[in-house]
């Protein structure tokens, strides 16, 4: 369970980073208005930081959660 959760956080964190970078924020298409200066979805940057935080939280989960065997 601990390993699954750790791996889930690492993969999930990278997915959140990729989605927020490419789908929520990248200016796709030819810029035609000032709206292209903003991310397509507000808080895309916050989601990206959340992804980074998830990846490093995996270290906490891996080290702090007890093994099922040792319980």
């Amino acid at each position, binding site marked *: 369970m601990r390993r699954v959760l750790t791996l889930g956080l690492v993969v999930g964190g990278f997915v959140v980073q990729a989605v927020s970078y490419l789908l929520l924020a990248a200016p796709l298409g030819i810029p035609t208005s000032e709206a292209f200066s903003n991310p397509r979805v507000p808080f895309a940057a916050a989601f990206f930081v959340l992804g980074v935080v998830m990846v490093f939280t995996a270290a906490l989960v891996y*080290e702090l959660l007890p093994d099922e065997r040792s319980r």
Partner: protein
Amino acid sequence: MAVKPLTLPWYGVGRWSGGWYAAAALALALVALGAVAYSLQLSQGEVVTGLRNVGTMRGATWGLYVAFLVYFVGVSFAGISTAALIRLLDLRPLRAVARMAEVLTVIALLLGALSVIADVGRPLRALVYLPTYARPMSPFFGTFTLVIAGYLYASLVYLYLDGRRDAALCAQRTSGRLARFYRLWAAGFRDTAEARRRHERTTFWLSLAILPLLVTAHSTLGVVFGLQGGRPGWHSALQAPGFVVLAGISGVGHLIVLAALVRWLLDERERLDLTVFRWLGNILLVLTLVYLYFTVVELLTATYAADEHETRVTMAVLTGPYAPVFWVSAGALVAAVALLGRQFLTGRYGVGLTALAGVLVNAAAVGKRYLIVVPSQTHGTLLPYGDGAYLPTWVELAVIAGLLGLGAFLFMVFMKVFPIIEVPEPSEGGR
């Protein structure tokens, strides 16, 4: 708080001396001065600073605060990179400075974040708008949010996990209010072979993940300046590598000074022996030589056949109003190389001389950061405006002094509540 007598090295934890109180009072006085100056800036606006619009007002919109933001983020570089490299390359001689390196990183990043807050006119608005409207691909986002948020979080995780074993030891040997804090930090840590293996694996992967984040972070900071094509003096491919190397210089220099201070204050000559200073001094020597090479290449490019605007900025730095800062900084770097190079060539290393080199490179780093940020704004405009000027006011100087005081105070408090040097394994000569 009561601390029971110990058999393990305690590195001054819980020993609150008169000297500590005096130093803490001085640091807090600086913090109070900074708070007063910042409240003045908040109530009256940035007119109380030396910051003015570029061009029309012939000033600089980025000044001392941004120079120190870059400096603080640079200092943070050494901390976590040293700690990560110690784990990855198994650099046992440097293990004694790993904890102080981690703490240095966390404190430096906090000060960097506060420098950003000090720089913006409407801090609350900035805190809301940055996560709402920033785009992850922007170098500004990379610097002001990703570096400070992601990098700080990663460093805190590293410091926390790396300190669990010592926290467990402290919890066993301490009574009083701090015991709860130690138990919380230890989070049920048991010093078993399995726990150690798991910790080794975690720190290995954490180190591996942190190093690229670190290089990206410092390169991004350089890219903020280097990508601006319309700003002579900034637009350069050398900005990103230059930032990484100067970050290493200021950080390793800071670490040397801290290690020398800790050695002197705790009289800890066994763990912080000459080998530590030899390693750090040699790393600093190599980094400083690389940076001097970058400086020469940059100056050669800017003075040989550069365009009119680039030449104007370079001349302002070499012979104009910024010349004193440039030559003092360059002189400090050369002096540090002379000190460290002499030690390297003769094989005779001294703590005092290495620490002096650390002080010199940090003075040079502050000067160089100032020169990177300011001259391009006052002398590098492509628009038909005359040369500008920027001089920080007492408000900016007081805010920066307050930040430095805060950093010193946090480090001093940490030293009194947690072992600043990793408690050695019994096999390493634990007393």
